[in-house]
């Protein structure tokens, strides 16, 4: 390799941004396969080449959890893909299915009633907090901080319990359906939610003490895995990772869906672009989600109950199901939904999950099945960040960067 300039860091501004070619490697670098059975990789493999202790090249080898969602989505009618797509990010279930439901709604020309919209937002925010806490837990264990793992996992149970009270399922809620949601809030839910919010606020302070302001953790995260703003925009990374790099982008603001334009919340943006900034964005987002939950719960408590499905669908309900809907607030799925047809057309539905923007491209030919469902999950878009963020760092920074990107392979592989 003598006589050749080695550019660590993968990209340089004066050279212009170029695609890093992979697999052209000198013989004096060491190749390490990290994954798929590896505590620092999850369900993926990162092939890194190290020169001494410095990563010169990273090649994310994903696809270990590719469960063919796009193909299966084409053969299951319009309703059954909802539980299917939920499995991509099982701890962020409402966020990840809502955009699909909205795309179908756009094609069908129906819209959820206001109360259903508030309920969707409520579950979305509960899920967002749970997803961020899961990310913290994994991050903690990556940095060797088992207490952070346990605390975040334990506090996540609070919000899982909240979602279970609301929907009846721990993780796989299948809550939004085209034209509405499946359940109204149960008795006593608002108080429970307020207690959870209060508890979580208190815990965030304790997280700050033991994790975020811990000198060891801070020194591991500061100036590590820096993704500058311009690079972040070129790579198209999404969610807290983009917002940690100073990109002011949140689907809840850009394309306010459901009732996000009526709620009072802020979208935190940090400009450093390092692992610590990405972590702080998540902490702030938990705070904002707690605010949203408070507002939504108050709204739901004040307003009288109304049917939680669209009128055009409500009309088709048989009397018994109407009675159940009105007395118990439970919207039954009807048999015709399994074979319903959706007018031909194309629609893009998108939403902000805990990890960033998810996009569903849904195409219908007027039949009983979607003609094509293209899913672009946030982790799938973040995967490319490994290739550009890892080179130039030490091997010991790999878990810190991986954890701060909050990458979830089942979501990325679809």
């Amino acid at each position, binding site marked *: 390799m003598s006589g050749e300039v080695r550019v660590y860091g993968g990209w340089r501004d004066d050279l212009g941004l170029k695609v890093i070619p992979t*697999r052209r*490697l000198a013989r004096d670098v060491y190749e390490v396969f990290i994954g798929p*059975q590896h*505590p620092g990789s*999850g*369900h993926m493999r990162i*092939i890194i080449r190290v020169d001494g202790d410095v990563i010169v090249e990273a090649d994310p080898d994903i696809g270990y959890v590719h469960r063919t969602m796009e193909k299966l989505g084409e053969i299951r009618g319009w309703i059954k893909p909802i539980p299917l797509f939920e499995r991509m990010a099982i701890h962020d279930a409402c966020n990840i299915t809502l955009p699909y439901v909205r795309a179908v709604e756009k094609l069908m020309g129906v819209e959820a009633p206001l109360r259903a919209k508030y309920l969707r937002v409520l579950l979305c925010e509960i899920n967002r907090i749970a997803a961020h806490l899961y990310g913290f837990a994994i991050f903690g264990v990556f940095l060797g901080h088992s207490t952070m793992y346990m605390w975040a*996992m334990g506090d996540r*149970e609070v919000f899982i319990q909240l979602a279970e009270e609301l929907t009846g399922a721990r993780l796989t809620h299948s809550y939004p359906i085209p034209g509405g949601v499946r359940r109204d809030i149960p008795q006593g839910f608002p108080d429970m939610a307020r207690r959870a919010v209060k508890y979580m606020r208190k815990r965030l302070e304790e997280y700050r003490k033991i994790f975020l302001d811990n000198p060891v953790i801070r020194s591991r995260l500061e100036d590590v895995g820096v993704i500058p703003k311009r690079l972040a925009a070129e790579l198209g990374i999404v969610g807290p990772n983009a917002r940690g790099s100073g990109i002011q982008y949140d689907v809840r603001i850009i394309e306010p869906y459901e009732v996000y334009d009526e709620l009072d919340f802020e979208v935190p943006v940090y400009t450093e672009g390092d692992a610590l900034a990405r972590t702080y964005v998540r902490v702030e987002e938990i705070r904002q989600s707690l605010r949203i939950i408070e507002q939504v719960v108050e709204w739901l408590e004040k307003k009288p109950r109304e049917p939680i499905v669209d009128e055009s669908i409500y009309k088709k309900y048989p009397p018994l199901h109407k009675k159940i809907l009105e007395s118990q607030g439970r919207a039954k799925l009807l048999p015709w939904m399994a074979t319903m047809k959706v007018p031909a057309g194309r629609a893009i539905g998108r939403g902000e999950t805990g990890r960033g923007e998810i996009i569903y491209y849904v195409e219908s030919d007027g039949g009983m099945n979607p003609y094509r469902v293209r899913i672009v999950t946030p982790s799938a878009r973040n995967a490319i960040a490994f290739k550009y963020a890892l080179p130039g760092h030490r091997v010991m920074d790999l878990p810190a960067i991986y954890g701060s990107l909050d990458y979830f392979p089942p979501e990325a592989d679809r």
Partner: protein
Amino acid sequence: MEEGKVYVGNLDVAAKRARDILLGKLKLEKVVDWANAFSLWPVHLTTSCCSTEFAATFGPRFDGEQFGALPWVGPRQTNLIVIEGTVTRKMACAVRVTWEQMPHPKYAIAMGACALDGGLFYNSYNVVRPWEVIPIDIYIPGCPPRPESVARAIVELQRKIRGRRVASSWIREGWRPDRDYVAPKEDYCAWQKTSPLLERV
């Protein structure tokens, strides 16, 4: 005995004699079974999305560690493998290799409907059944199973090990007769030989 090596004895013969003495004459079967039952360390192998519930099992609310199960990193030091959901074609090889890297006696728990028979993905082209890849001891139904049922599966496995003397008889015999009905490794790992990923320059 190869040439050029210091004499260390025939390890297999020595090990066999040692386990005959320990298990046969000293009657240590019960101790071994007890120790195996209360020291089930699952290896870190996340195959799919059930891993979130598996992670929750070892969180504070359910605390799987109270049964002596401590999630561990390397396959060499563990004795339990938990298949956390769907196993894809690409992952099957990793599952098999991990299983083979673990020292026996070792056990496997299959978690979730996907690990039973494909579950929601039963007609997917990229999904294999875990019981074709490695022999399974305990199945947990559910999609995903609740953490309680994972803890329950660990307890069931403990009961199985102690009740049927699984560990001690495995050590004495050297193999488990009911564990050999899995497909050959080439079925799942052959693609790696042709994979463009592993091309060297």
